[in-house]
């Protein structure tokens, strides 16, 4: 057996690939579900916090800033491990999927809150004044005048950050979630052959390459023209 044959047999083994394809496919769908859960809850919570922060209630804002800085500073894997391995000691245990979801959603919430907040503060003060002078209330002004402009400005940085954090779904494999990486790792253990990892990498490319390209398109499409 030549080196080349050995290489092909290790990483592109057709028999192993066929055997573990269904598992990888299951992991593929699971990763998509996990990613969507993280994106929806993370962005909604981030926007919610930014809106609360706009009310400028000092103690509340200090709390928001503390929470946001906490989740921006902690490595996502540490949060996942704390939830999965730490919480049971406190009598509360969650499955790996829930832990990964909550941890990464919290990180996305923290980063997106900062981005949404930057967008809100970047809207000129005159916009608030014009709207308030016509009798619109604070929330009406935020909703109809400020947020539409702020969101438009935040779309490019938000897209990048969302992609970066969503790729962190691979961390879920550490807490026994059979996502793409989890399924691939299991395949390697059972077959004594790394081909499932090659398939896993391919699956991530299939999943995220379109998202990255979409992000690039969004970034140029929504670049704010004044």
């Amino acid at each position, binding site marked *: 057996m030549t080196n080349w044959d050995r290489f092909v047999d290790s990483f592109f083994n057709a028999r192993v690939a066929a055997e573990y394809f269904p598992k990888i496919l299951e992991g593929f769908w699971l990763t998509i579900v996990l990613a969507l859960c993280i994106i929806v809850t993370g962005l909604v919570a981030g926007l919610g916090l930014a809106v609360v922060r706009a009310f400028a209630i000092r103690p509340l804002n200090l709390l928001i800033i503390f929470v946001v800085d906490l989740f921006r500073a902690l490595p996502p894997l540490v949060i996942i491990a704390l939830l999965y391995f730490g919480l049971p000691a406190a009598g509360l245990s969650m499955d790996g999927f829930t832990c990964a979801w909550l941890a990464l959603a919290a990180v996305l919430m923290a980063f997106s809150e900062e981005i949404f907040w930057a967008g809100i503060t970047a809207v000129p003060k005159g916009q608030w004044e*014009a709207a308030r002078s*016509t009798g*619109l*209330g604070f929330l009406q002004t935020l909703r109809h005048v400020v947020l539409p402009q702020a969101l438009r400005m935040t779309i490019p940085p938000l897209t990048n950050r969302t992609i970066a954090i969503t790729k962190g779904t691979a961390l879920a494999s550490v807490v026994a979630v059979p996502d793409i990486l989890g399924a691939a790792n299991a395949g390697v253990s059972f077959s004594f052959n790394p081909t499932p990892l090659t398939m896993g990498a391919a699956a991530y490319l299939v999943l995220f390459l379109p998202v990255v390209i979409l992000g690039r398109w969004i970034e140029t499409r929504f670049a704010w023209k004044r």
Partner: protein
Amino acid sequence: MAIVEATGIHKHFGALHVLKGVDLVVHEKELVFVIGPSGSGKSTLLRCLNRLEEPSGGSIIVDGVDMLSPRTDINKARQRIGMVFQSFNLYPHMTALGNVTLALRKVLKLGRAEAEERGQAALKRVHLEDRADHFPGQLSGGQQQRVAIARAIALEPRVMLFDEPTSALDPELVGGVLEAMRELRRDGMTMVVVSHEMAFAKAAADRVVFMADGMIVEQGTPAEVFGNPQHERTRAFIGQIDRH
């Protein structure tokens, strides 16, 4: 009948005493012009009238409503007070018609059809009915300011406040905005105008108020203030303006 009755208005920005007890009464259908050197507190006074700026002391009654009372619904009170800003402040993500109808729909709670009908009528009054579908970025500065005027008058306010409405405009665009203001005046709108357009003041104002250092130094008809100023500060200011 007095539409605006401001008495003893004080405003502090930190250690800075910007308004030092200003009294201003504006009667129905009157056009009052406020002039004065920059930093004299003209804009601050105007912004206190609809409480965009919170006065530190004094009382403000607009159309019978105590603007400073905690029991006053400020959003309701502001519907009766139109304001036009130096930098237009149109909503860039909405068309001209969208700018004009937002408050009609969200504050007056009109249906879309009725709001658009009133919005179109307001745009017609500033001669921009054919620009209803344009976004602010597609309009000239003068057109943007006229849309801003339409946005304010669509609510049928009892008084209009103009905060240096032509200062950000190229000279050739000033005329259209002044013309729109002149027409408002003809229709009987009560107006308070902070501006440096002295020719307009001489031609259209009922009363000119000269402010300096946070106080009203003197006031009177344009002929009195421009023709025969009583105070040294007024004379100096008008002399400087005339040299231009």
